[in-house]
């Protein structure tokens, strides 16, 4: 998480699309680790807590910059 914060703080000109892409990767990793540790699907609050993020922000970052074309991919990911 420190890494994400450093990334976000570094440069006032970082585009949201780029930062979201980076953070989304951290979220995916945290979700997988949490699922493994808990032995079940994590709840959004658990994941948010793990990441030190607001749950709604986690939702935003997972999805906000996704192109409409990839709608069907979300089903099978």
């Amino acid at each position: 998480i420190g890494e994400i914060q450093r990334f976000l703080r570094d440069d006032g000109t970082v585009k949201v699309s780029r930062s979201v892409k980076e953070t989304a990767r951290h979220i995916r990793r945290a979700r997988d680790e949490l699922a493994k540790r808990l032995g079940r699907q994590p709840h959004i609050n658990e994941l948010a807590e793990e990441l030190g993020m607001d749950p709604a922000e986690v939702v935003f970052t997972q999805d906000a910059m996704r192109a409409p074309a990839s709608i069907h991919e979300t089903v099978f990911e």
Partner: protein
Amino acid sequence: MSATRNVMRLEFSSRSENESFARVAVAAFVAQLDPTVEELTEIKTAVSEAVTNAIIHGYGDREGMVSITCTLEGDVVEIMIDDQGVGIEDIELARQPMYTSRPDLERSGMGFTIMENFVDKVEITSRPRQGTRVRLVKRLKSRTTSEH
């Protein structure tokens, strides 16, 4: 979260750029009930399918407004997606897996089937030339196991 109803309503131009915004807005609202990440993905996917239909089929080349009403009550999420587009002539036919009226757009005809798989109830109300309402209901089954 209190147990009383919490309501939000969303309205936006029927553009494909707005699909991810609509999906995120609904998911961010539902996140209050602390669903699993998986349940949230299911809800987002179902909403996406209904919103895409409103944009592509309902309005086509025209631009209109799509509206979404979402209600949280206890562990039940109700989502209505409305358009004032062309409407559906034969709802039974439209619901059939693989049926699409637009094979030219490389549509798979699986939108309603996906919705039915991801939420507990899918109701379609439509009138030709008046518009379409899709009502999705999902109970968050996992909710009680979350406290520990």
